[in-house]
Each structure stands twice: as structure tokens, then as C-alpha cells.
């Protein structure tokens, strides 16, 4: 890991510190919960149990985490190329459209053909939606933050149009497409497990989670172990040095955005092929935006992103349980807790850092940094 400080044990930087921050966030959240008249310990227990306490909960947590991994990776890849992609939401939306089209068109085909095609289509559509802002940034200098924000809105308009006017199931009032043929669904993890004789609780968790893990490893290998990833990082840090090093920033910028969009597009596979099995409105549910926090909290590193995604997945699922079991803790309170956690684990990361690092720096001699 390239990022850990040179002079403290890596576990302090990567595990202890986030934990301390998490505790601080929970402490503040506990105060809020107490003010609202609930027992904070009970609430935190429900949150924790509801997220990880039993099979189905874990399934939901991992399902959400899958979405966050995709959008987190998307943000991170762009970030390493020096680009701030706020457009994950729109790219995910389009990704869903891409795989949805495959699901609708090739319903009855063998899964071995449909599923890879669906994944490919999701990536392609997501990439295409990010390609345009990338191209405009590289060639015309149009600021990527504005264009990707705009493309989120355009994607929403496009999808609403398509669902209301084109894909809507006739005679139905809900703007959603017909259901795909079950053969084209991304298999649920509980089904796959059942096939090999393991019983796990039923949840929307589907094989997309494997795609997410593969994507994480892939992104890591790509960024830190290939020349293309190398070129991308050089461009992100120093464009002049990139030109000097024989790298064409224009191509890298466009390529990085396309890759970023492709990763965001995979949300479509998880949500559409894996869970909804039909095209619907708003299935992106803000995952694209939260992906920004996930990426930055995960320090733009796939391992960190997976951990942060897990945290957010747990918050989504545990939060739902929280408002389910403790009616006084409405969905808004859950959002407050999420905000606090992002604030403390992300923004106030430096609050305890110097003290904690100082505590550990004294002990071992400045060892050479390990990769």
C-alpha cells in the first residue's frame, strides 16, 4: 500500500485510527439518540445486530456494500487521474439501462451468454455516459464537475422518458418494464449456495458481489501493477511529468473517465439484474453520491473502499432495522448517524491522528516502508 505513513506500523494507520474515529462518531450519535429519548446502547446494538447479526442482515449489508464498492471504485479511478467524477449516479442509471436492455431482449437465452453480456452492456453504457464528460474535459477543458452533475440530471430525464413512454408494461401504472426472464437474472448467492448444499438466508445479495470483488482486485492491479494504471496515476499527479514521460494526458483522461463510468455502470447489474429483475425508476438511490464518501474514506484504495463500502452497507441495512424497531428513530435519524460517521471517519480523520501516531512512532525504529 503506497499510502501509509512512512514511520508508523500500517495497522495503526489503517485499522486502529479508523476504529477510534468510528467510536467518536458513535459517541456523538449516542448523544443525539439519547436526546430523542431512546436508549443509545440499545439503538447501537440494534444497528449493529440489524446489520451483521444474522444471515439475512448480512446479505442485505453485502448487497448494499456491492453497490458502494462499484461507485467507490468509480470515484477512485477518476480521482487517481486527477478527475472528480460526481456523475456516478447517472452512470449507474445508464448502466442499469444497458443491462436491462440485454435482460429484456435476450430473456430466454442461456445465462452463460446473457449474464456476461449484461455485465458488458452495463459497463459499456456507464462508460459511454462518462465518456462524454471525459472527452469534453480532455479536449475542450469543460470542467468535469459541472458536466457530470449535468449528466446526472440528463440521465434522470432520459430514464424517466424511456420508462414512462417506451418500456412501461402496457396497462400498468407503475413506470417499470416487464420482468426479465428468470434465466437472465443474476443468480442470488443463497441460490448458488443452495446448489452446493449450503443453506444461507435469502437476501438480494447476488453474484454481483463477486463481480465487485473481482473489480476491486482488478482496479488494484490496474492502477498499481500495469503500465496503463501507472500512466493514469502520473497524469493525475502531474500532467507535465506525464507528457515528459511519453504519456498522452488526453487519452488517459478520456480512458479513466470511461473506466470510471464502466465501474459505476455495474451498479446496474447488482440492482437491476440482481435484485429488481426489471427496469425501474430511481434504483440508483444515491449510491453514486455516497460513492464519493466511500472512495475518499477508503483513501482511494480498493481495500479501503471495500471496508468503507462495508461500513456504509451496514449503515444502510442496520439503519433500516433501527427505524423498524425503534419507531422514534425515523429514517432521518438514521441519516444523521450516517452523516456523523462520514464527518468523523472522513473529515475529522486528523482529530486523533497526530496523537495516535505519536504514541506509536516512538516505539519501533523508523523501519523502511514496506509495500
Amino acid at each position, binding site marked *: 500500500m503506497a499510502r501509509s505513513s512512512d514511520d508508523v506500523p500500517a495497522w495503526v494507520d489503517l485499522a486502529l485510527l479508523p476504529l477510534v474515529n468510528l467510536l467518536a462518531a458513535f459517541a456523538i450519535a449516542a448523544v443525539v439518540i439519547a436526546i430523542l429519548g431512546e436508549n443509545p446502547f440499545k439503538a447501537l446494538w440494534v444497528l449493529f*445486530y440489524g446489520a451483521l*447479526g*444474522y444471515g439475512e442482515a448480512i446479505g*442485505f449489508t453485502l*448487497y*448494499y456494500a456491492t453497490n458502494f464498492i462499484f461507485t467507490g471504485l468509480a470515484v477512485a479511478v477518476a480521482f487517481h487521474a486527477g478527475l472528480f467524477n460526481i456523475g456516478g449516479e447517472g452512470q449507474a442509471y445508464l448502466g442499469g439501462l444497458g443491462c436491462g436492455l440485454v435482460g429484456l431482449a435476450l430473456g430466454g437465452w442461456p445465462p452463460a451468454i446473457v449474464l456476461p453480456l449484461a455485465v458488458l452492456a452495463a459497463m459499456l453504457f456507464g462508460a459511454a455516459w462518462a465518456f462524454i464528460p471525459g472527452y469534453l474535459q480532455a479536449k475542450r477543458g469543460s470542467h468535469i464537475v459541472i458536466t457530470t452533475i449535468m449528466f446526472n*440530471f440528463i440521465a*434522470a*430525464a432520459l*430514464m*424517466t422518458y424511456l420508462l*414512462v413512454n417506451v418500456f*412501461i408494461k*402496457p*396497462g*400498468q*401504472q*407503475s*413506470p*417499470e418494464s416487464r*420482468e426479465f426472464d428468470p434465466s437472465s437474472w443474476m443468480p442470488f448467492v443463497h441460490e448458488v449456495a443452495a446448489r452446493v448444499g449450503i443453506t444461507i438466508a435469502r437476501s*438480494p445479495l447476488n453474484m454481483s458481489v463477486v463481480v465487485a470483488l473481482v473489480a476491486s482486485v482488478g482496479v488494484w492491479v490496474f492502477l498499481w501493477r500495469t503500465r496503463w494504471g501507472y500512466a493514469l496515476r502520473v497524469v493525475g499527479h502531474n500532467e507535465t511529468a506525464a507528457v515528459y514521460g511519453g504519456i498522452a494526458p488526453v487519452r488517459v483522461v478520456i480512458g479513466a473517465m470511461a473506466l470510471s463510468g464502466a465501474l459505476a455502470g455495474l451498479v446496474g447489474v447488482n*440492482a437491476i439484474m440482481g*435484485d*429488481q429483475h*426489471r427496469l*425501474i425508476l*430511481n*434504483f440508483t*438511490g*444515491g449510491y453514486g453520491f455516497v460513492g464519493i464518501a466511500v472512495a475518499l474514506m477508503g483513501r482511494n484504495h480498493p481495500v479501503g473502499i471495500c471496508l468503507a463500502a462495508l461500513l456504509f452497507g451496514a449503515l*444502510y441495512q442496520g439503519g*433500516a432495522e433501527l*427505524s*423498524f424497531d425503534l*419507531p422514534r428513530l*425515523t*429514517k432521518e435519524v438514521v441519516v444523521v448517524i450516517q452523516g456523523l460517521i462520514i464527518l468523523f471517519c472522513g473529515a475529522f480523520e486528523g482529530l486523533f491522528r497526530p496523537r495516535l501516531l505519536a504514541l506509536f512512532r516512538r516505539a519501533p525504529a523508523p523501519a523502511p516502508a514496506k509495500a
Partner: protein
Amino acid sequence: MMVLGAGAQAQEFVPALVFDMGGKFDKSFNEAAYSGAQKFKKDSGVDYREFEVTNETQREQALRNMARRGATVVVAIGFAHATPLQVVAKEFPNVKFTIIDGVVDLPNVQSVLFKEQEGSYLVGMLAALTSKTGKVGFVGGMDIPLIRAFACGYRQGVVAVNPKAEVFENMTGTTPAAWNDPTKGGELARSQFDRGADIVYAAAGATGLGVLQAAKDLGKLSIGVDSNQNHLHPGSVLTSMVKGVDVAVYNAFKDAKAGTWKGGIQNLGLAEKAVGWALDDNNRKLVSAENEKKVNDAMADIVSGKVKVVDYRAGNSCPAK
């Protein structure tokens, strides 16, 4: 956590309510559902469980959780619950489900639909009868079939009174924010007033609050939706197109408790008094006796079948342009 098994169900009556994405305080149909449930709680002394969905994945989860945790009857608000309910209702054949605004064809599901077009027709008539400019407006949340049905009924009512009347129609947005953007709602209403409309009908959730406010600020009239919103700006809200979601929820709970709950599809309209227009002290002065009579006559005609109000959703088209 999951101790409530099938055994407990037999004795205990546990009603449950799953709201749609806007949340229970959307000043619109979720809130109507909420007040129906609250009324039931007050009348019967039985508490109910509730959950507000915040993303698409939670719909199925929420319905299943309710059923699994011992709910006797689960009311789901909003058409988007139809597909997940299709799955969950099969899993829990002994649990009663009621869905509002959607159809699920299963024996243990009661599907409640409303003829929004009929209520909208009446307020459309009243708008046309009251308008001095012959121009009226409509502000919808999102361009979806449900909202088009509102708009279409409204247009039919307007045209029935004044075939030459002009109807301006605006949709707020394409994201969920469209239902929560009173600022934009206000602007859309103002744009219609600017073009000469003097009455605007809002069918856009909390966005509609901005429409009502704009009408009030400009001294024009507005028409509320879903709940009776006449009291929000007395003297400025011409009327409200009430949709009896509260009654539907109340009845579902009450019937389930009494054992008279029945599955199947209910398509509720004026005849069932499930939709209608609101006349109370707040808007009394705005509606002349003559207009009141005309609207009530039309209501009787619709109930009797003499006048047919086309449902946009039936053929994806509207006779009144």
C-alpha cells in the same frame, strides 16, 4: 428478534403500514395513509407498526419483515410496491395485504385503486367555472401515468365547462426531488399565472405547497390534492381533490380486525365517495351556490354513469388535449 411465530399471529391483531418513498409526512398520499392509521389507532386502541422505505431494495424487505414479525394485515402505499408484493404475498398466504394504487392479483391481497380522474374532473369543472380568464393550470410532480391521469381528468372537467379554455400543464422534475421542491413548484405556478391562468391545480406532493403559496402570494387560486388542503391558505385554495387513502387504510385495518377484510381489486371512485372535492368553511366563499350545484350535478351524473370520465391509464391517451 424473530420470536413472533405463526402461533402468536392467531391471537394478536397486529396491523402494519409500509409507506412509499416520499415518507409519511409528504403532505400527500403517504400522509393521508398515516392519518388513516392514526385514526384507527385512536378509535381502536390498537397500535400499528410502520416503516418508511428509503430505497427500492427495501420494499420487499419491509413487506417481508412485517409479515414475518407477526403482522396480521400489511398495508403498502404506492404502486411501486406491486412487484415486491407479488413475491411476498405468495410467501405469506396467511397474512393479509392491502396495496394502495397498485394491483396484485392474489387471494390474500386487496388492491385499492382510485379513480383520480373522477375527482380531478370535478375540480377541473370548478376551476373552469371559477376562472375569469378562461385559462387554468396544472402542476404535476413527475410525468408518470398516475399524474397523467390526474391531469387528464382535470382537463376533461375543464373542457366540459368551457371547451375553449386553455389548460397549462407542467411537470416538476425527473428525480425524486420533484415531489419535494416547493420552490420549483412555486415557480411553475407563477409561470402559469404569468401566462394568464388564474387557478392552478397541484398534484405534486410537497412541491404543491409551493404552488399553493404562489397562488396565495399573487392573489390567485389554487387547488390542493390528496388530503383536504383548503385550510392551508383559507380563501386562496379553491378546493382540494381528496383521495380517500386515509379511509382505505382505516378500512383495511378495521375490516381485518373485524374479520370482514376481503381480497380482490377495488376500484374506488365518486360512487364510493373515495374521491371527491372538498368544500368547507375555508373555501365556502370561493364557491358560489350555482357552481356548487353544477359540480354536484356532474358528480351525480358520473356516479349514475351518464357522464364517463376517461382514465388515462386505460388507453394511455387523453380525449381532452
